[in-house]
């Protein structure tokens, strides 16, 4: 049985919602009642059936709507997708990876057939049936990275590895939590993370870089990151901050449950076979408070995490303006009882 793709929006009337099954599979990012940065990287292996880790590249009920939103962002601002000239080969690597993984996990929706360099790609949800020559950019309507990432959920950064560092040299970034590909493209690992508070002092990035530069082909890794977003808006780019920023002032005790969303990024890291680059998909999951608190354990834990978050992190994540309202609302759902270990709902 295939996925039923929702018709919904991530802007204007914000009709985005999660079905009850998608609420249960939400990748809740807190395994305990508090949060601090850590190098929380683990092998990206297949997880339980019905979880977001059932397939290594997850496709869910929001797929079609997310791809439509991406197309709208790119029409407004083509600079959200950029690739430096030496990154085309890595783009082909990524195209292969995403076609293989999506066809493997969702054969009813995607089919890849190969006859030497002659490839046929069928994407039924988006109504695409293209035949092209692998490695020949002139046979695709876009460059290989742009072509396949217009058909894949999440942002994608392709990192070139040289001089013992990773360089942000290509990307498709339309659902980012407040960082600019156009500004950061060409930077190394430490430079593009420069604005992150506290983590440099803790040596997080030195250890993370060491881990990432050693990632082997066929052995991807992953970590979770999180922030919060007002309204289910995918495009919270700095480019449009002056347009979505005012949303943060609209949170009231009455609308917290509908407006405030936990935004979780499932970041994975894959070695690319031909280019030796690393691709870094950043898959964004949104859940509104009303949906999240249907799982009592998550409600109690989120209350404690947000209440006790260090001020610098709250500022960096942009929570300052509505944190008191949110904590007050969540406190009513926290009876003080213990939470079970681990991420999942009870």
């Amino acid at each position, binding site marked *: 049985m295939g996925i039923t793709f929702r018709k919904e929006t991530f802007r204007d009337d914000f009709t985005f919602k999660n079905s009850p099954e998608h609420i249960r599979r939400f990748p809740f990012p807190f395994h305990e009642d508090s949060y601090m940065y850590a190098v929380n990287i683990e092998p990206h292996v297949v997880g339980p059936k019905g979880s977001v880790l059932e397939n290594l590249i997850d496709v869910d009920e929001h797929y079609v709507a997310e791809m439509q939103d991406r197309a709208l962002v790119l029409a407004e601002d083509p600079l959200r997708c950029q690739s430096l000239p030496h990154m085309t080969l890595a783009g082909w690597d990524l195209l292969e990876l995403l076609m293989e993984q999506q066809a493997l996990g969702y054969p009813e929706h995607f089919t890849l057939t190969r006859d030497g360099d002659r490839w046929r790609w069928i994407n039924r949800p988006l109504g695409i049936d293209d035949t092209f020559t692998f490695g020949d950019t002139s046979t695709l309507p876009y460059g290989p990275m742009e072509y396949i990432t217009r058909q894949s959920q999440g942002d994608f950064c392709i990192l070139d590895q040289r001089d013992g560092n990773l360089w942000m040299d290509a990307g498709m970034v339309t659902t980012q939590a407040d960082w600019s590909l*156009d*500004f950061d493209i060409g*930077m190394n690992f430490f430079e593009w993370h*420069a604005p992150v508070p506290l983590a440099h002092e803790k040596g997080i990035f030195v250890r993370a870089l060491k881990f990432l530069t050693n990632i082997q082909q066929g052995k991807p890794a992953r970590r979770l990151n999180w922030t919060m977003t007002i309204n289910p808006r995918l495009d919270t780019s700095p480019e449009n*901050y002056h347009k979505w920023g005012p949303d943060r002032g609209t949170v009231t005790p009455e609308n917290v449950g509908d407006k405030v969303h936990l935004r979780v990024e499932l970041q994975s890291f894959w070695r690319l076979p031909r280019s030796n680059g690393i691709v870094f998909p950043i898959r964004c999951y949104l859940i509104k408070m009303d949906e999240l608190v249907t799982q009592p354990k998550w409600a109690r834990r989120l209350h404690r995490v947000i209440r006790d978050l260090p001020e610098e992190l709250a500022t960096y994540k942009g929570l300052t303006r509505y944190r008191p309202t949110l904590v007050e609302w969540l406190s009513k759902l926290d009876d003080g009882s213990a939470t079970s270990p681990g991420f999942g709902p009870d």
Partner: protein
Amino acid sequence: MAAKTIISRPVYGTLSPQPGKHHLFIADAEGALAITDMARTAPSGFFDGAEIVFIPGPDGKHAGALEALKPTQFHLAPSFASLLPRLKQTLTNAHMGLRLYLAGTEGLIGQAMQVALEAGIDHTSMQTEHRGSLARRMQCVHCKGITENVTTQPATCSHCGLLLLVRDHYSRRLAAFQGVCINAEDRSEIPPIEEAFP
């Protein structure tokens, strides 16, 4: 000297003579003094293989002191924009062994480095020394326009008019600091504008 704050923010050094056949100096305003200071410790004949390109500041000073070093080529440019075509050709035609020395304002160092990067020169191989104004080149993350010589915090984008926080986050590719709307969440909040980068 500008203080080191975050990792993407450039750190400048002190010019010192490097081994190499050809030496290209690009400087503006008080950056000339970095070159004349370095010249005191340079081996004799060092400037025989040197080209100095200089953009004088508003006071018009220092050109004579540089010319007195008797470089093989000396060029006075009224602005960086006017220098650009010549600089691009010099770097395109440069051979291995060219050493690059950049001195003066951050805007000059950054823009010259940007052209050199495009010509394939590694940024770590360039000698830099910051002298003079702390004024910043800023890219508005919203409209992408560059505002030159930003001295205040916050600063108004000269293209779209938004009031921007001038961050320390810096892009060598754009030769600019990032400017992000400071009152995006509530436009009625107007923070005081202070002289931060004199």
